């Protein structure tokens, strides 16, 4: 009996330690999440006292709006570019840093990580000037070569590339450090043996390093999508406000714009709910399929 009482008492103490986090999570994360899903079935403008139930009306309206497709395509473009810049490239560089070069490892690590601690608003502002197509330093350099820079912030397609580059300035170093930790867990002897056998670097990377560090690789892959799309919000908001004509908007920014600029609360909530579903799908894929394959590959 005494033991049962002790277990009971321990349970209460444990819950007491969890309660502060649980209360804040419930109030500002879980409840808002549920409320947003509820709002997605209403027609509302954030201010009016009247909310009208419209069923799937907001979702139907979204799918009938040609801009939604534009934004979905943009979101996909951001994902592809961010994966190249912030997942594949730092992956390769972390391999080089760990196994190919011998000197300066710490120096490169510190310098490449440095921008990760700086505000992305600062980064956006600096790049607006650095990449200014008329008077910025990059334009001046290109002028010497006889090339004039396009007005990237007004050019379809190019604007997504440049905004992704600006985002990468901040995110690259963080992913790089995480991948470096994963890559350094690959047994050194395997790589050194392969190097001695003169196996080309790209083969070592794709056939040894990639499969043997895939747990970290997949984590960064998914985080690049989930956090990358949210990080892009800052340069979009600061530099283009989604323009020209929605050419640089993505799911996250458009949802913000619907809610706080256009006051289409229901549509914004519907778009957020769709984004949530996309991210949950990614989480599900990681747990269901990818984790299994990782296990298989590392055996």
């Amino acid at each position, binding site marked *: 009996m005494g033991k049962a009482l002790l277990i009971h008492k321990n349970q209460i103490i444990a819950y007491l330690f969890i309660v502060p986090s649980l209360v*804040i999570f419930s109030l500002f994360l879980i409840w808002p999440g549920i409320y*947003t899903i509820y*709002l997605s079935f209403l027609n509302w403008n954030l201010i009016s006292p009247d909310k009208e139930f419209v069923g799937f009306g907001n979702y139907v309206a979204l799918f009938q709006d040609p801009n939604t497709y534009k934004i979905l395509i943009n979101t996909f473009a951001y994902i592809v570019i961010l994966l190249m810049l912030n997942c594949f490239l730092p992956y390769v560089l972390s391999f080089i840093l760990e196994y190919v070069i011998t000197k300066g490892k710490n120096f*490169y690590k510190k310098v490449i990580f440095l921008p990760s601690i700086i505000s992305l608003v*600062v980064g956006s502002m600096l790049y607006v000037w650095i990449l200014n197509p008329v008077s910025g330093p990059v334009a001046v350099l290109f002028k010497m070569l006889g090339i004039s820079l396009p007005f990237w912030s007004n050019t379809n397609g190019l604007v997504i590339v440049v905004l992704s580059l600006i985002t990468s300035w901040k995110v690259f170093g963080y992913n790089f450090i995480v991948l470096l930790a994963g890559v350094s867990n690959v047994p050194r002897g395997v790589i050194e043996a392969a190097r001695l056998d003169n196996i080309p670097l790209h083969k070592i990377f794709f056939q040894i390093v990639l499969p043997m560090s895939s747990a970290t690789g997949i984590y960064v892959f998914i985080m690049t999508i989930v956090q990358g799309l949210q990080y892009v919000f800052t340069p979009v908001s600061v530099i283009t406000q989604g323009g020209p004509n929605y050419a640089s908007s993505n799911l996250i920014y458009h949802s913000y714009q619907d809610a706080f600029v256009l006051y289409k609360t229901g549509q914004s909530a519907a778009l957020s709910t769709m984004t*949530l579903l996309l991210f949950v799908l990614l989480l599900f894929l990681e747990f269901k399929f990818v984790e299994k394959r990782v296990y298989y590959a590392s055996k």
Partner: protein
Amino acid sequence: MPVNKFINGRLFWHILLLLFSIMMLFPLLFAISNSFKSLSESYNNMLSLIPGNPTFSNYVTIFTTLPLFQIILNTFITATIVTLFKLATSYFAAYAFTFFKFRGEKLLYFLFVATIFVPFTVMMIPNYLIISKIGLLNNIYGVILPQLCDATGIFIITQTMKTIPKSLIEVSKLDNVGTLGILRDIVFPLTKPAIVSSGIMFFINSWNEYVWPTLILKDRINFTLPLVLQMFISSEGGTSFPLAMAISMVTMIIPLILYLFFQKYILNTFSQSGIK
């Protein structure tokens, strides 16, 4: 093949890595040098990294025309409160997850960590409504309130606590050390590195926070640094270029100093956060 040999050699990669490092550092050097140039020099000679006639006038201008001391104080208070609360809530939750068995333990832990995958747009409208309902719009406490807890912090501190042998806790309990004593004298010293580095990470992230404060703060006097910076980005550009660089410097300086002093800590935590 000579090309292959070159790519497999070290020199090629050093050149590439150095180019990379320069690309990472250039924006900083660009901001520092131009913030000390006069308006005309900054326009005529934007590229030179050493100002011809260094001047403090840009800094004087921004500090006299904007309530910058108040804005720095707002940023500092916000980041400090957010950091202390996130550390406390993460530390307590991690303690429960590591040293106690209770119903729903696994589910709760999964739920907490899964929140990392929730996009902020899902919370923004309801949280905005809550903050406006309790009258904290245009107030830094409205910015602070939803951020008092952090899933990444719980995750990192739990991972560290798991390395503490359970027997150590059992022995202390037998010696009649109370729960508070265990938390303060036994667990805390052993998790200190993780706590310090999570704390620095929270502080820097909160210092740089942009999205949520833009929704909540309306008047200049209540702004945090990233918001005031945004006023200097206009499509016209205009005469504000060296001033914008000075504001950037003011915004960056605290995270930069923290990074210089705590690099090792910071690099360690960030690399841990990706390992399961």
